[in-house]
């Protein structure tokens, strides 16, 4: 154990201060939403009025259910389809497969912000505006997910799959009985990543859904600033309502959040 110099102690002090400062807006959001200043005693008092208005005047539960349905479906689709594709790309040999993998990676270079207009015209042209299909289908599989699962499955010994085949498993049984149980750690990481990005997605649901009952939470929340701009406690109650599930998920699954980050990174 090396000694710690006074400089390093000052450094840590500053770092902790900044970390706490970083949490201040989140705490302030909850205070603005759930308390009011008691003028008589000059103290803060718990006050649920803003949340009461939020739940009675706005369809926030509907938005939350929309967000939940979309995120769960998108996550389930990614886990299945990306594992399947990742398994084939990692362990199977067929003509053109490698080229398809590179094509798949190439789509990662083009972000969704760029393709939003043609995608909107396509989906709206099919008459699918304001539907769950429109919210879910475009992100049911992601290039990042395919890449990640392929990298993970590459590290598994090929002999396992050959043994399963010798024992009489067909290809699909090999996948469900051998591959899926083995990729569980990667599935947790990808699942957390996909769920978070889907829950927080904004531009796509904003343009494809203009009916209020089909909005997801971020879109519904963003609409508050037009209607309820002066009602700060209500807006902060809405922000808290949308933020708390993610914060809870983060504390419950912190390990998976953090290990997902290093997937794309390199040794250094």
């Amino acid at each position: 154990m090396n000694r710690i110099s006074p400089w390093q102690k000052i450094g840590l002090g500053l770092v902790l201060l900044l970390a706490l400062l970083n949490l201040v807006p989140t705490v302030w959001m909850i205070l603005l939403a759930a308390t009011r200043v008691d003028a008589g005693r000059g103290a803060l008092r718990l006050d649920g009025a803003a949340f009461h208005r939020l739940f009675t005047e706005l369809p926030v539960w509907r938005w939350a259910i929309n967000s939940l349905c979309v995120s769960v479906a998108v996550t389930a689709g990614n886990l299945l389809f990306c594992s399947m594709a990742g398994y084939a790309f990692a362990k199977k040999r067929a003509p053109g497969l490698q080229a398809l993998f590179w094509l798949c990676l190439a789509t990662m270079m083009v972000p969704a912000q760029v393709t939003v207009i043609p995608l909107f015209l396509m989906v709206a042209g099919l008459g699918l505006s304001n539907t769950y299909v429109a919210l879910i289908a475009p992100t049911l599989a992601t290039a990042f997910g395919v890449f990640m699962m392929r990298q993970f499955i590459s590290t598994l010994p090929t002999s396992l799959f050959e043994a399963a085949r010798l024992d009489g498993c067909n290809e699909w049984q090999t996948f469900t009985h051998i591959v899926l149980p083995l990729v569980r750690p990667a599935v947790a990481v990808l699942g957390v990543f996909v769920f978070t990005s889907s829950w927080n997605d904004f531009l796509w649901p904003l343009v494809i859904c203009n009916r209020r009952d089909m909005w997801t939470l971020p879109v519904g929340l963003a609409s508050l600033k037009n209607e309820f701009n002066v009602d700060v406690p209500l807006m902060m109650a809405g922000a808290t309502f949308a933020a708390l599930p993610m914060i809870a998920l983060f504390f419950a699954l912190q390990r998976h959040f953090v290990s997902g980050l290093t997937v794309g990174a390199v040794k250094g």
Partner: protein
Amino acid sequence: MKSRIDWTAYGFVAPALLILALAHAYPILKLCVLSVQETDVLRGTAHWCGLANFSGLLADEHLWTSVRNTLVYSLGVVPGILLVSLALAFACQPFAARWQRFMRAALYLPGVVSVVVTAMVWTRVYDPQFGLLNRTLAWLGVNGPTWLGDPRWALSAIVIMSIFTALGTPFILFLTAINGVPKEYYEASEIDGAGPGRTFLAVTLPLIRPTLLYLLIILTIGSFQVFSAVYVMTEGGPNYATFTAVYMVYEEAFRYFDFGRASALSVILMAALALLALAQFRWLSSEVEY
């Protein structure tokens, strides 16, 4: 055994590739077609118009405003995030794992909630009268600006928010990289009489270069796509002070329904991002051995 062709492979990749083809590959081609067409939304017709969308864009002063704002945003956010998170990771490195875990959680937490939520909360932080920031400044005897209402400060305000809320990932990657540097290197540097600053420049920085480059590219590409914060906080204003590229795409397409122009702008943005991505592959192919 390995060389046998396995035809089921196509079945396994089909669902994922079908979705990627329909939701990414085809829209990219369609985007290029749209960018050279004039679309009439009411009649639902489109016809070839050459490069008129592009020349119209280049003559539009708002395009140059949006390009400048996007570059200023990027040049503020990317170095800001890299410097702050690297300094934090370096300062944290000598300390026990439980402190590091606390720091990771504290810095990462603001990043897990939607940008819409963050932007709404920071709009209150920047409120000229009742905001946390100006109240703190007033307490210090400084008369703060109106931040989001002031064309000189609005973009900086969004930059500051973006830096603060995006520190988590870079901090964790830097900390992982710094923790991966062998302890003997630091001991050798200490024996040679180097202080913390010298140690950082001569030992840590060269060895974490790959992480630094990776983050540089990822953050730059991300910063070019800034939209939600602008939409929620300023809608591009005041007086186009926060009008960025993706926000302009959104306005052209979904406020003025000029899909041709919005597509031409998207093509320009796509080209810029592709160049950045190519730079990523070039730079990342260099290895560091130790």
